[in-house]
């Protein structure tokens, strides 16, 4: 999926300045078996939460109380009146986007934490926006989101915690995926036929969609979360604690395990998670590289050179410019297919005007590419991404026959 949304940083409100006087170091205990500096590890922790509902919002608020270094929240939904039953909110937040509303609460609790929010679907975020994340907690309400989040984390080698609850049996679940190698298990490795059937049902499409490609559904909840607030909070806190254990390397390894606890009996289970060799997801690890300068100022040839893997020594076969699609040809009122050859955002339904009829030119679906075969852009290899239409580019995925390289912008200091 082409990226079309991004993070916005939340600024601290003056009324909450008193919170900056709270110091984590005054309350962190002498943890048993701690090898390093807990405060430094939490300062360096970049955590991302996908799905900021009953479970995810609890985890987010816990991270804010821990004053972690950076917190990124993603949710495309808004709070409804029923959210008051299970989610840690006040009536004043009803109607507000979940990610931004919880991000503001987190910033109020911990002004020193860098808090970013994205009120769109995870699938619309650029892969480059997940770079530097140390641990990702997914607490969404549909399998498509879980599968897509797992796929991205596996590609980028990000540790992932899946927090969930089963209301009827008062059970909280926490699955921890190490994604240590490309052969590590991903969430889809645990899916059976029933889960795949449900994923098909989670997607709905409108006939208008082909005119506005970014309106494709990303998966929807088949039913509302049926649970109790204490159980959701419990599930969220287990995920937060699991993330702390990972960050501080406390206790026996918890990676690639499923932890389950039932509040009826207070019995718990820890089960190892294994890879399914028949998993339909792409079990591959991207090589992360920095571009020599801002991506938009790089020519296609420079990107090819930067993405050339020393082990392989060959140029990539295709490029994907995150946030843009390559439009080879388009149609206007002349009713004749015209060459366009430019990068266009997926939200843009037109790509300029025809020089003959002066009417808008619409991208032709067959000639629109998410991943651009190099043969299509060979003629433009000396042009910069900016001159081809990508004025703000965050990542370029270059694909070789069996490997992929994700090129990101250089760090801000290096740019200066």
């Amino acid at each position, binding site marked *: 999926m082409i990226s079309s949304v991004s993070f916005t940083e939340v600024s601290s409100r003056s009324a909450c300045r008193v919170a900056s006087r709270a110091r984590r170091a005054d309350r962190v205990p002498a943890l048993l078996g701690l090898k390093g500096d807990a405060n430094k590890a939490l300062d360096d922790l970049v955590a991302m939460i996908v799905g900021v509902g009953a479970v995810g919002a609890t985890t987010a608020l816990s991270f804010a109380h821990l004053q972690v270094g950076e917190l990124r929240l993603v949710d495309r939904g808004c709070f409804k009146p029923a959210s008051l039953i299970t989610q840690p909110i006040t009536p004043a937040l009803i109607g507000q986007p979940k990610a931004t509303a919880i991000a503001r609460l987190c910033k109020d609790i911990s002004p020193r934490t860098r808090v970013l929010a994205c009120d769109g679907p995870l699938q619309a975020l650029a892969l480059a926006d997940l770079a530097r994340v140390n641990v990702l907690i997914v607490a969404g309400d549909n399998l498509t989101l879980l599968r897509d989040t797992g796929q991205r984390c596996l590609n980028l080698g990000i540790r992932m915690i899946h927090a969930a609850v089963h209301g009827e049996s008062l059970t909280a679940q926490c699955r921890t995926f190490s994604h240590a190698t490309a052969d590590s298990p991903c969430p889809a490795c645990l899916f059976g036929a029933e889960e*795949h059937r449900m994923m098909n049902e989670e997607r709905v*499409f409108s006939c208008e969609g082909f005119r506005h490609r970014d309106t494709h559904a990303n998966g929807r909840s088949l039913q509302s979360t049926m649970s109790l607030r204490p159980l959701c909070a419990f599930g969220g806190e287990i995920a937060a604690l699991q993330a702390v254990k990972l960050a501080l390397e406390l206790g026996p390894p918890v990676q690639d395990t499923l932890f389950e606890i039932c509040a009826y009996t207070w019995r718990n289970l820890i089960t190892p998670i294994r890879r399914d060799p028949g998993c339909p997801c792409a079990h591959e690890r991207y090589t992360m590289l920095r571009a020599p300068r801002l991506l938009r100022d790089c020519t296609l040839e420079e990107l090819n050179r930067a993405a050339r893997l020393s082990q392989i020594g060959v140029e990539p076969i295709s490029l994907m410019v995150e946030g843009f699609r390559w439009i080879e040809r388009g149609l206007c009122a002349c009713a004749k297919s015209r060459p366009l050859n430019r990068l266009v955002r997926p939200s843009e339904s037109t790509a300029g005007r025809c020089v003959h009829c002066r009417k808008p030119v619409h991208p032709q679906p067959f000639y629109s590419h998410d991943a651009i075969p190099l043969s299509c852009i060979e003629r433009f290899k000396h042009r910069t991404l900016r001159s081809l239409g990508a004025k703000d580019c965050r990542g370029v995925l270059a694909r070789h026959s069996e490997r992929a390289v994700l090129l990101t912008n250089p760090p801000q200091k290096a740019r200066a």
Partner: protein
Amino acid sequence: MNTSLESKPVRSLSALQEVELSAPYRALYERVASAAAGPEPWRRRKLGAAHEFLASAQVSGRIMVQYLDLSAAFRSVFLLRVPVPCRRGGVGPLVIEPVAQLGFTYRPEAMTTAQPGYSFFEVLSPREVHHPNIAPSNVPPGAQVLCLGPSLPAGTKVVDLVLMAYAAISLQSVQFSLTDPAGLLNPSAAIFLQTSNTPIPLTREPFVLLKEATP
């Protein structure tokens, strides 16, 4: 990348993976296979689909592959021998064209996720197709996208999609109901075909050409 249809026909579409490709198809397959990129399951899927697609062209005698590319998505341009209903400007008399040139795209996500029915085929020619399931060329955006239904399950096979396209274009399987907009991209064509005396379907021929399939 033109490939001739001169190949010995085999009779069945049921075991395409076992069909031995004739020389021109094999040459085309080998050329595109070397450039197939992507993660292992996707690359394997593309190669298998390419073989089946070329085998279906060989078996049916109904397809002429003009372009095939596996470097990113599975993309192909091919001529499909199928009657295509057309009306100039959407108002003239109905003209039946004998061949459609289709642009076909099968993206990696189609392997794992349900896709909208309009995400696979575009009728590149003829223009001015007048068909309930094909977006009209005289209304912006002008792309003649073919819709095969509201949602197609994950992992639908390439050859199955080609068969569905044949059935849809020839009006063997078609959505006419104005009250059920699933798959209906040209309501005026649906009204026209319901009220005119156009024989529907436009052909009753099966996908495999019978004449060539006779031993």
